[in-house]
């Protein structure tokens, strides 16, 4: 199932993000997938997210597919050159993957292999373009393919209030290349989301708002200082302040539901990033529905 198709069908689309294991044991990953599978239209598998080395998403997408779960494969331009990127995509298509999310990735310095060489052979928009070409039966160099994928291609965007013209231009460029939907960075202010939607309205692509549950007041402050474009307003942080470890999840679930309900009318879907809190996904999805 292609995400863009699902959205075109008119439903509020829910995707949920899981991180591959650091190592070869996939039990935790599978448990997490089982917890959310009935509450999400698709599960996105991240690609060395935040520059932390983990198992390749391609293989985990295949595992999901074999369990009848619709995967979205993240593919990051930082770690592969154009040969590797294209071969990954073809491999994914063979595994039955129909959705990819093209991302730039964090600087290697924030991750766990700070001496790694960032590749950045292609830009995001050229990778979008390459994926579209693969869909059309050609590789980047123009050679014909034997059999071709049918990817629905997504891109990420920072949803800021005052989106700068070059940011809009960048998105416009990617959409022009063939991107079919946008997944935003986490947004904690509905007004920001509204402003973002407004500024990209002429692109005419569906938007999924992403969401990270707040684990604690400190975690929220950490995001504010370390994730560009993320702003958790003070009133939300105060809700969690002084709560004990046991009290936080219930409060946090409620905050997520309230917030997402307010943003639901602005967008076409939501992308949950539970990061270990998969057990709360069902309550949030039910609460927002």
């Amino acid at each position, binding site marked *: 199932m292609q995400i863009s198709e699902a959205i075109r069908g008119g439903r509020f689309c829910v995707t949920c993000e899981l991180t591959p294991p650091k190592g070869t044991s996939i039990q935790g990953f599978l448990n997490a997938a089982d917890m959310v599978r009935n509450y999400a239209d698709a599960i996105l598998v991240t690609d060395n997210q935040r520059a932390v080395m983990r198992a390749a998403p391609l293989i985990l997408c295949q595992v999901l597919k074999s369990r009848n779960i619709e995967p979205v494969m993240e593919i990051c331009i930082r770690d592969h050159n154009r040969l590797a990127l294209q071969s990954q995509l073809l491999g994914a298509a063979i595994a039955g993957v129909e959705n990819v999310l093209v991302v730039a990735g964090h600087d290697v*310095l924030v991750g766990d292999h700070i001496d790694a060489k960032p590749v950045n052979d292609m830009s995001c928009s050229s990778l979008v373009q390459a994926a579209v070409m693969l869909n059309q039966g050609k590789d980047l160099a123009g050679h014909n393919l034997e059999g071709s994928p049918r990817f629905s291609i997504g891109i990420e965007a920072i949803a800021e209030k005052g989106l700068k013209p070059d940011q809009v231009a960048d998105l416009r460029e990617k959409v022009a290349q063939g991107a079919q939907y946008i997944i935003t960075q986490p947004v904690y202010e509905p007004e920001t989301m509204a402003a973002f939607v407004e500024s990209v309205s002429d692109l005419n692509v569906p938007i999924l708002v992403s969401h990270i549950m707040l*684990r604690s007041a*400190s975690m929220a*402050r*950490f995001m504010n*200082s370390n*994730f560009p474009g993320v702003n958790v307003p003070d009133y939300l942080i105060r809700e969690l302040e002084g709560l004990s470890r046991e009290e936080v999840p219930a409060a946090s679930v409620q905050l997520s539901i309230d917030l997402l309900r307010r943003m639901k009318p602005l967008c076409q879907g939501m992308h949950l990033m539970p990061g270990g809190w998969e057990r709360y996904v069902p309550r949030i999805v039910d609460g927002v529905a």
Partner: protein
Amino acid sequence: MHREERTNQILVITSHQGLVGIIQEAVQGSLEITHAADEKEGLEKARKNFPNLIVLGYIDPPGTAFQLHRKLREGWITKNIPLLLVDADTSDQAHRVLSLEEGLQIEADDYITLSGVDTQASATRLARPIAALMDRVQTRIQQNANVLREAILDPEVFCITWEQIPGRGAFEMQQEELIENARRAAKKGTVHAVSVTDNPGGNPAISTEILCTEVRKLGIEPLVHLAFRDKNRNECESVLYGLAGLGVRNVLMLTGDYPSDGGFKGRSKPVFDLDAVHGLQMLDMMNAGMDHETMGRKVKLAPTDFFAGSAVSPFKATESELLCQYYKLDKKIRAGAKFVIPQLGYDARKMHEIMLWLRMHGHVNVPVLANIYILPLGAARLMNSNGIPGAVVSDKLLATIAEEAKDKDKGRSARIMRAAKMYAMAKGMGYAGAHIGGHGISYETLEEIVQRGDEMAPRWRDLVPEFDFPQPDGFYFFEKDPDTGLNTERSAPRKEKGAKPPIYQFARVAHATMFNPSSVVFKSLRPMVKMIDNSHRMKSAFEFCEHLAKVAMFGCQNCGDCALFDVAFLCPMSQCPKSQRNGPCGGSYLGWCEVNPEKKCVWVRAYQRLKSHGAEGEIVEDIVPPPNWELMGTASWLNFYMGRDHSARKLGIAPPETKAGSKKAAQSQAGQGAKA
């Protein structure tokens, strides 16, 4: 001082020296800073010093701070200590306190980044969050304050505790009601603590300790009853640690009714390893931080914060019983009882007597909670036939209640009124509060009693005649005041006769000669005893003979730590079913034993024996320690001569030089030294 009362300790864990300086600058000497440079030291200091706030900065190698943050958050000791994560040096991406991925999972109380700011500016930025967290520490301490202790100790507050029955079973209506009552009490605020009895009536019931931790979660202070009937000293200590760890701090130390015959396949084994006096002593040691030794290393345990009370049964008909009750109460207070709840009774003069007794015996400041039980006819009948040990309902009171039960409401309003009147009297007499109980009482009823009681309190003296239910020929400590119907400060004449059976006279003479360290006999016998003690065969023979003689004379049970000297040559191990070494339990009735009504209570006999030569007051003097089970089955006379038992230690008999003594003797001596 209990560790939670220190409010200015801050622990900085970081391998980045600059941060320590910044924090020093930020708090300007208002807080005491301890520094730990690595994970191991940090954990150790967090657990040991129990700081009020932990500031965690970068620690080598990357990833360590996050791991440590986890351990602190999940740790039993450290889980509630506020934690502030600080990113001090962000010039270097690789040396940030957390990676991005870690940052999304932190559960600290606060996080702050000082990126690209100099020391002075950093200090200014840190001052606010630190102050905010310290404020929160203060509020937590306030919220965490022991409401019951405060209410009992505050002379302006009349403290209300509500007694609940745990019930046998795991999913029963009693438990449903108990939790519901606790929930309502927590919401409404009239009640300061909900108390849960411990296997009441000697029947098994769901654990009061576990229920009380649940009660605490509902937001009201629990009062745990701890009866020594079912638990030996180790189990008591262990249960108390469990309670302390989960924040339950109020305990009522009780001997406990004898085990009922309703146990699994018959009556349970009565334990009574400690008595209430011992329990209070143990708790006092725990509160001070108990010393103990593991693998040759002496350590002091972190102090607990218990607030303990105890009971007294003043509704006794005879002089000997009553005096012994007060002697024991005196010991309980010396052992650390911080408040007292008397047994049930409906006699204004007795209610007044306790307060007067405490005042006249130097215990003016010991708060007492009146025990008020809402008494229906059935329970009254049971108490009247002595069905509830120590609870007294006289014939006259029973007749009154039977009359009231004929009312349209089956006596409901009358019994609630009676409870409210007792409440009013307690308030008038200077009680610190009321301990209210009653089967199936709703929260509304409880409030009704409190409200009416408060209304009637100013004219409490008028109510006294309504509580004139003495036991026939009942003994009172003080003479009656005919004007008030209460007591004068003059002690009543004590006419009970002493008793001097021949065995007692014989034992006294034998004691004065043979068991007196300054006597010639003792001194000359000691070398011989030492010889016997060192020879295995002679020792066994001696043990056998001593046992035979003492069984014949005293019903000895061979505990090896003889308490005959302490109880007028009556063996508390064999003659008292509850092995009480410091005074009677609350259950005796007209001088007869609660458990064995054909026998006189051992303490009544002891009192009479001592009274025969004017020495009954000795009972109050020494707190007799619990038997040392290490000596079980050994000859107590040898133990005395060799300085191994509690009496020898009391008299200062030192064990002979160890070269000659057996290894075991030396060891046991060392063991006792640590416990003493």
